[in-house]
């Protein structure tokens, strides 16, 4: 079967050139040849990232109407609007891979697509909005700064834009925490309580240990991923501990201690059973979040249809005018 061999040879050649491009730190662009697995991995990763931004609006949206004052409300609105924007940059990047946006929505709504598990935790007090901005956005920044150098051009460019905007998210959260931590005894308690609940889920955001991470090896060779889960998690802990100390908060981990020799903080083991439960859909808010997305999408159906009908009517009118003229 000489034909098959020939096609196979060609594929090997393309694969070599693809890897050489990546090794030379040259970005892969939408129309370039790429292995199917690279395309599939990126569609999965970028769309999950987009879903996370969109679902991430829900826990925070919960507090827009109850923000303590107008300044905080305007800030929270702007932040949640940014998250919508980030979701759209990412869906747009995913679509350059040839996947249809409605298909991605369908995957989310049918429960086939994942999103960051952190958004399956409830926001029970105003302090949670501070803790989310500071910790959740803080962890996201560590991850996204690393992804700015990812090998796929459109994904990398979306990350650059997102990182530019994300810094405000973390700072506004930390500012909320400062107000509470320097406030009354009740406010201090609120801050500590929110910190206790968000600390561990934030560490889980970086995913399983490197030794347990299923896609890591190939994704590192293809430079989709630039740093390992454990590396990024350590970076986040080292960054965040002094910030917690400044607030006078106690880190809810008895094993947390500075390790002089390593030059890093040591910290305790994550409850991986909880992590797996939330990933599998059994977290406190998994069902509520997907239901809210489905509901919003269904309720928007008439708007999408009306807009198309209006656009068609306008186009027809224009055509008629042009014919007459």
């Amino acid at each position, binding site marked *: 079967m000489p034909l098959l061999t020939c096609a196979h040879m060609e594929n090997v050649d393309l694969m070599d050139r693809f890897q050489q491009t990546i090794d030379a730190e040259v970005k892969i*662009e939408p*129309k*370039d*040849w790429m292995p199917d697995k690279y395309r599939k991995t990126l569609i999965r990763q970028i769309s999950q990232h987009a879903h996370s931004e969109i679902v991430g609006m829900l826990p925070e949206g919960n507090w827009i109407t109850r923000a303590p004052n107008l300044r905080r409300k305007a800030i929270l609105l*702007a932040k949640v*609007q*940014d998250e919508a*924007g980030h979701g*759209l*940059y990412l869906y*747009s*990047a995913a*679509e*350059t891979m040839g996947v249809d*946006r*409605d298909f991605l929505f369908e995957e989310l709504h049918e429960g086939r697509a994942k999103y960051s598990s952190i958004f399956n935790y409830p926001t029970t007090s105003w302090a949670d909005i501070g803790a989310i901005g500071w910790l959740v956005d803080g962890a996201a920044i560590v991850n996204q700064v690393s992804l700015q150098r990812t090998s796929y051009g*459109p994904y990398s*460019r*979306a990350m650059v834009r997102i990182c530019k*905007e994300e810094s405000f998210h973390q700072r506004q959260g930390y500012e909320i925490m400062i107000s509470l931590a320097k406030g009354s005894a009740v406010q201090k308690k609120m801050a500590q309580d929110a910190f206790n609940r968000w600390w561990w889920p934030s560490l889980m955001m970086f995913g399983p240990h490197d030794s347990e991470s299923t896609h890591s090896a190939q994704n590192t060779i293809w430079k989709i991923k630039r740093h390992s889960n454990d590396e990024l998690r350590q970076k986040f802990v080292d960054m965040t501990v002094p910030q917690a100390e400044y607030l006078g908060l106690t880190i809810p981990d008895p094993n947390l201690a500075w390790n002089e020799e390593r030059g890093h903080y040591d910290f305790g083991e994550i409850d991986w059973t909880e992590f797996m439960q939330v990933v599998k859909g059994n977290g406190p808010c998994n069902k509520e979040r997907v239901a809210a997305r489905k509901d919003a999408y269904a309720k928007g*159906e008439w708007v*999408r*249809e009306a*807009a*198309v009908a*209006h*656009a068609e009517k*306008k*186009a027809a009118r224009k055509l008629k005018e042009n014919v007459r003229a």
Partner: protein
Amino acid sequence: MSKSNWPLWEVFIRSKQGLSHKHVGSLHAADAEMAIENARDVYTRRMEGISIWVVPSSEISASSPDDKDIMYEPANDKVYRHPTFYNIPPEIGHM
């Protein structure tokens, strides 16, 4: 395909007077007017632009990456198109 599907548009933004429009990404909209309004919300929340172009993605014709060699390689051996190809005596200074 549902009848509510909006087509894809490519968005180009001029960040300030004196610079050209630059591609920033894409979005979905029912028509050009809505595409411009959406582009404003998605791509210029922080004064990133003063002018927006939107083009239906289906209307863009692009060169193929497979033609890279035929298209651009011939320019490779025409080094005499670059100023550094020419030796100017140092006494002349900047030219």
